[in-house]
Structure formats: C-alpha cells, structure tokens
C-alpha cells in the first residue's frame, strides 16, 4: 500500500529568491526550496539539513550546475548535492532527501509523507 501523502502549502512565490534557496518548516522537518528561473523545471526541494555537519543550512548554499547537473554547494564544507536526486557529487554513498514540488497559483506546495520522519543521511 502506498504511504499516505499530501501536498503541503509551504510558502508563496514572493518568498522565493531567484537563483537561490529559502528554508521552510514542514511536517517532515526543515526543507530547502530552490528557485532557478533559467531552468526547466525551475523549482527544487531537498532537505535543509546538511548530512556532513548535521546543521540546517543547505538553503543558504550557492546554486549552480556542474556538468549540467543542477546543484547546491553546502555553505559549511562545500560538498555539492544534486537538486534533482539529492546525491552528493563528492561521495555518492551520501544523499539528502528530495521532495516533489509544484507551483499552485501563487502557492508553492511540497509533497510530504505524513508521519514518516526518516533520517536524512543515507
């Protein structure tokens, strides 16, 4: 049976910062939402927690692309995480959780699994 999920409204378009990330609080804990207006899709959501430091900081990293892959660099120890898959480019045994994200009118919604707080590092 598929786990129950729901699309949680986390913020509005005005909260987003182009080419950068913001952090939101969800039922599943802190999530980083990135808005890259020059890409398709333009929205990405991954866990806000940096698996290497344990600190909630990934939304504050610099975004970009490495060999075409959209990434964010951890602001603490500079590892890169794929915004699509959550996999760490420097160490593919580590990945952060990713979340489906969509724009609903003016609302940004994340697909969050209810009551299922899983750890973020692989």
């Amino acid at each position, binding site marked *: 049976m598929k786990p129950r999920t729901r699309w949680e409204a*986390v*913020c509005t378009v005005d*909260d987003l*910062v*182009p*080419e*950068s990330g*913001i*952090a*939101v*609080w969800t039922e599943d*804990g*802190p999530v980083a939402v990135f808005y*890259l207006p*020059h*890409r398709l899709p333009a929205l990405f959501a991954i866990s806000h*927690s940096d*698996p*290497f*430091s*344990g*600190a*909630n*900081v990934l939304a*504050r*990293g*610099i*975004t*970009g*692309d*490495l*060999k*075409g892959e*959209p*990434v964010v*660099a951890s*602001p*603490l120890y*500079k590892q*890169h995480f794929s915004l699509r898959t959550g996999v760490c480019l420097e160490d593919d045994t580590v990945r952060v959780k990713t979340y489906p994200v969509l724009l609903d009118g003016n609302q940004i919604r994340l697909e969050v699994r209810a009551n299922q707080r899983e750890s973020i*590092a692989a």
Partner: protein
Amino acid sequence: MSKKTLIVVGNGMVGHHFLEQFCASPAAADFEIIVFGEEKQLAYDRVHLSEYFGGSSHADLAMGTLEWYTEQGIQLHLNEQVTGINREHRTLETPRGGYRYDELVLATGSYPFVPPIKGNDRPHCLVYRTLDDLDTIRASSEGARTGVVVGGGLLGLEAANALKSLGLEAHVVEFAPRLMPVQLDADGGALLRHKIEELGVQVHTEKATTAITEGEDARLRMNFSDESFLETDLIVFSAGIRPQDALARASGLEIGERGGIVIDNHCTTSDPHVHAIGECALWEQKIFGLVAPGYTMARTLSSALNGDRDTAFTGADMSTKLKLLGVDVGSIGDAHAQTPGARNIRFNDEQAGHYRRMVISEDGKTLLGAILVGDNSHYDTLLQYALNGITLPENPETLILPESQGGAPALGPDALPETASICSCHNVTKGDICRAIDAGCSDLGSVKSETKASTGCGGCTALLKNVVDSELEKRGVEVSKDLCEHFPYSRQELFHLVKVNGIRTFRTLISQHGKGHGCDICKPAVASILAICWNEHILATDHVPLQDTNDTFMANMQKNGTYSIVPRIPGGEITPDKLIVLGEVAKEYDLYTKITGGQRVDLFGATLSQLPEIWEKLIAAGFETGHAYGKSLRTVKSCVGNTWCRYGVQDSVDMAIRLEDRYKGLRAPHKVKMAVSGCTRECAEAQSKDFGVIATENGWNLYVCGNGGMRPRHADLFATDLSDEELIRTIDRVVMFYVRTADRLQRTSVWMESLEGGLEYLKEVVLEDSLGIGAELEEHMEGIVGTYQCEWKTAVEDPEKRKRFREFVNAPSQADPVQEWTVERGQRRPVLESA
C-alpha cells in the same frame, strides 16, 4: 647488545642538520645520542640573524623544536659547555659531569674575529654572531645615536643592517679598498657602496683602525692610520670568522696552521672516533664559512656513520646570492677570473644601478664565474651554467644583457640536466624532483615537503616552481588557469572583460563569455569583481545569489548553522560606552564572546533571524559592519603609539584608523590584513600582514605581502620614510594592482611571488609607475572609497532585504531544532557534533 653513544658538541645549524639526517638513518637505532649546546637556545637560523631586530623571535628563527628532540630520544644539554675531551678513555667533561662516547662529532662552528686593536675590549665594543650578541647590541643601542661595523664583508653588511633597524646611524669601516672584497670586483664593489650609501649607511674604505679611545661627542673614538678618526656610540666587529677549534686543539687533534680541525673526505679527524663538520672543520686547507657546505658535510658524515664509504665530501660551491640592506648581490664560482686564460664580459648600467660580470673559459664554452650587483634575476640561470658546465650560447653576452638589448630569456628548466642542483641547502637535484613527482607529488607544496627543496635559505623558490610546473606539464598534468568549468578565463581576464565591457551582472557575463549557470567557484569570484568595478550593495537583487553564505548574511556561519558577528573597531580603539553596548547585546542574546587576533570582539551564536535585530542595536550605538565575513579588508591592528608609549615615534593608532576607514569594505581576491606599529619594536606585528606599516623618526616604512596563518611569510620592505600622504598613495596603488591582477583566493604573498619579476617588478609598477597606470589605480580607489556604505545599515533599513533573514519563511517562531546548547566556562556553546 647495548647501544653505543654518539655525542654531538655544538647545536648550531650544521649540528642540527646532522641530527636530522642521522636520526632518519638506520644507524640511529644503534646509538644513544647526546647533544651539548653552549648557547641557551636550540639551534637557530644564523643566516637570517638580522631579522631578529626586524621583529623575528628565537621561535621564528629556530631550526627545530624541543618536541622533536624528545621524540628522537636525544638527550639535549643546552647552556652546557664542553670543557675537555679525553680521547684515550673516550670521555668528555662539562662543568656538570663526565660523559663517555663511542663516536664524537664536533660541530662547534666559529667565533667572530676581533682585530688586535688597542681598546677593542672597551665597553660597547661588540660582536655579531649569536642571539645573545644581538641582545647585547640592542642593550648597547639604548641611548646611542651612531654605530660602526668594522668589516665590509657579507656579515658586516648584515650587521650594518641590524644597526640600521635599531634606528642607529650606521657606518661601515673596511680595511680593503672596496666592500665585499672576496665576492666582488672593483666596479661591483663601487656600485654596492653607492647603493648602500643611498640607503643612509656611510661607508669608509681603506681605513685601518689603530686604536679605540674614549670619544668626545660620543662614547668611543676610532683612530685610523691616516690620522683621521670617527666617533661612535658602539662598535660591532665583523671582520671575519675563525674556526672554534680550542677543544680539539687541547685534546691533541690535528689542527691546521691557521686553525681548523683537519678532516678527511668523510669528515673524520685524525682520531677515527672523532669527526668534525661545519665552520670548525678544515678540509684540504679550506674553511667553509657558508651553511650549504656545512650541510653537505653533515650528510656525508651521517652516511659514513652508516657504513657508506662511497659518499665523500669533495668541496663545495661557494656561490652566494643575497640581499644586503635590500640590495641584490650575487657571486658565482671564479668571480675574480683567476683561472688562466679566463675572459670577462661586463655589463654596467649606472643609470639603473645594475652591474653584471661573466667570467668565461678561454674557449668561450663554459661559464667559470660571475658577479651581480643590483639585480639578481640572472643568478639562477648563470649558476646553472656554471655548476653544470652547460655549453654557453654562441653569444654569451646575451645572458646578461637586458632583454630589450637582445638579452636571452632565462635558462628554461628543460635545459637543465638531471644532475643539476636546484636546492643547494638540502642538496636536491632536478632528478630528485622528477622522482618525487613520479612518486605522486602533484604540486609545489608536496614536492617541497617530500624533498625539502627550498626549505633552507629559500633562494631557489622561483627556480623550483619553474621546474615543478614544467615537469608537471610534461606529464600531462594540466596547469589550467581557467576559473572553473563555466569560464575559460582567469580571474584577471574576467576582471578585464567586466571592466572593459561595462558588464554589471553575472547573468550577462556568463551568457556572453561563459556557459551553463555558474557554481560556487565562479559566482563569488564574479561578485567580488563586480563589487570592485561598480561597488553596488552586495545584497542588490542580482548579486544576492552570487555570494557565499557569509556575504549573503553578512556574518560568519559556524558549525551549527548559527552566525558570529564582528563589528568594526578601527585600529582596535573603542570607547568604554561602546564596549558596554557590545556586552549588553551579547548578554541579551546570550552570545559567546571572544576577543579576536585582530583587536576586535567576536560574538558567536546568533541565529539568522536575530542578525538584523542585533545589528539595529549595534548601528544605533555607532558600530559599523567589520566585514569579517568578506574577502576584503579585515582589520588594521595597531600598537598604542606615541600618544602613550614612551618608545613610540609616530601616532600608530591614528594611522591605523585612517587606513581602516579608507579601505573598509573594498572587495579583494582574498582577505586583506594590515597593521601599524609605532616604532621599530613592532608590537603590532605588521610584518606578518599583507600591508605592514612601521613608524620611523621620519615617517613610515611600508612592508608588503606578508602573511601569518598556514603559510607564514615575512613582509618585504617596500618603501621607507614615507609621509602620511605618500604612504596612503602607495598602499592605494599596491592594493588596487593586487585587486585587479590576482587570482581568485590568492593572498598578496602568493600573488607577489607569482608576479614575474616579483618584488622588484611590483616596485617598478607602483613606485616608478612603469606601466603608467598609477593615476588610474589611485582614481579607481578614490571612487570606491567615495561610494562606501555600511552594508548592514543599508540592509536593516530595507524591508525587502530583511526578508532574507527568516530562518523558516513560513514559521517565524519555529526554532532550529538542531541548535542545542551547553554552558562552558560561563558561556554558551553548541553541543552539535559534526560528522
């Protein structure tokens, strides 16, 4: 089998080098090692002794550490003089007891020669050899105005430099008709004299001192054989060295006619269990008064004690390259053309102050020797020709002509044979370097730590880098200058593209000159370039996503995701009221408080959303941002200066505040640190900064491109006795030239070393305006200074910018659950364990 005992008498540079070599060899396991040093301190670098007055301490000059000696199991007896050797019983004595040895190494060095002049034992007649001597000289300089060095050789000129840095009017008295008679010829000596006199050191040649008597206007009077005299407050004898062979002599070892412990090719004396190395040893009637031959002897002896009879000491190259009082002097091989049939080529540019002489063999094929004064840039190439017998080009004069007159470029590293010695201090050849690279060293740093090349006197740094770069390139290791995969340009090239094309956003730059969307390498680099060119607020919408988190939130992120705050405290001067505000704010937000190395206060543990509130309070109390988060000017450290200090000669605090206010906020390729000291005692440690200013009686001395931290480097003296305005203009130019031409994350020290022509080139550009860009650099700086804004003030006043400081945009009251705290020594700290 019980261990044998090896005793080393003497803990100088050569003695220490021997221990390093021997302890790393297999035979070390068979010996207990005991070392006696007459001085109080561990072995230190005597070659750079004059830096002791420039601010270096014994720790800076030390060759090793006590920990190292302990780790090696060496029994170290400092401040304990060996008084006698009994070779029959193989024992030696000190005032504290007797010791037995199986093998004895004498590394007793030399002592300064004091000419037999009547009155040479008066107070304030001193010598220049040890740190204790330097302390004595310093004490004697209190209340003194002038100082004389007797002896115009290499050590004498070093000593004159030391007197000068103590603020004395320095004189050099030389018996010969010219300075450095051993290394230089008449023309070279004359040029050196001219340059040194320009620096304010008075030179008296062909003067024989007959007596030293009491002075009338000064403490002492030196009477010369030509009836003239010179009054001075102190005299330093530096008229050569004599081997310290007293102990060997008393024990009946064979001694040379004019002193020195006679050794064979394996550094063994007339007693097979006694060995001698360094300046106390006499090999084929020769004493070697340089450190490199001493090191060679140390290595030879270590091999011999390991049973290796093939390694032999076969003499040493006495070529020298130095900077005396800031003047380049080089002397190679047969500098005086004593080889039969030798011919000379001379180049003498009195205008530029460059003198070069090549001594070549009769057939014109090999270089026998050379003399350089004023510019040592040809030294490495000439030395390689001389040492390796490389056949000279058809027109050998091209080697010393300026390039504009058809001079040949320096000998490329490819032209050197495998056997070419690159580092003579540690005897590292080009072949050794190639092997290190083949064994996996992939950059300069790892080659240095693997081979020890360039870790002695450092004279071969540039050559080593060339060899390493060329060998890496040959092996297909790409030494790419591209910033990252998005821009096929160096930072300097990007700077020009931005400036020339008037580009104001990252998006424009990457769409016109790059590819993709950028990354955490190129975005901050471009943000810095844009800031320098246009000086817009770093949180302008287009620039926000380019910044590192520290720049974005104008604070320093710590390991648990909180930030630290460093308000600017210019020159380290702060009123009690402002100090109270810092305390009150820290208390209100429970911030961990620590004093920084840059004379400021760091407040740790603020959450993202607290930052604007805290800054509102700080700004209301008159604080500005300290840019501790930026690649920009950090702090201008200062001592208290002449307003309080009885030694101060200028107002260092006032100058530090002026400099800090001028350069605050300027974006640079890396952080920039400055300091101002109010006198030569250098309490602000200015010589470890990117820009160091030291007060003189007449103004300010400027030092540039120093560094503390991971790779410490003493700053180089750049200009002397500058007025306030000259000082600021000079710093303006150097800073701006650095900002425009350095690579990303390149500190000034590395930048300067990477400039072709190094310090001399930088001086030409800045002081002589050789590129004709001086006015433009100053104008650019004025523009940046004029558009300064406190980034925090602008940010807290703008509701849009403040939106960025929400921890979770949809839950303002939600605390970050991983930020947990504990209390230690009365303050809060994180409990978060990092993975």
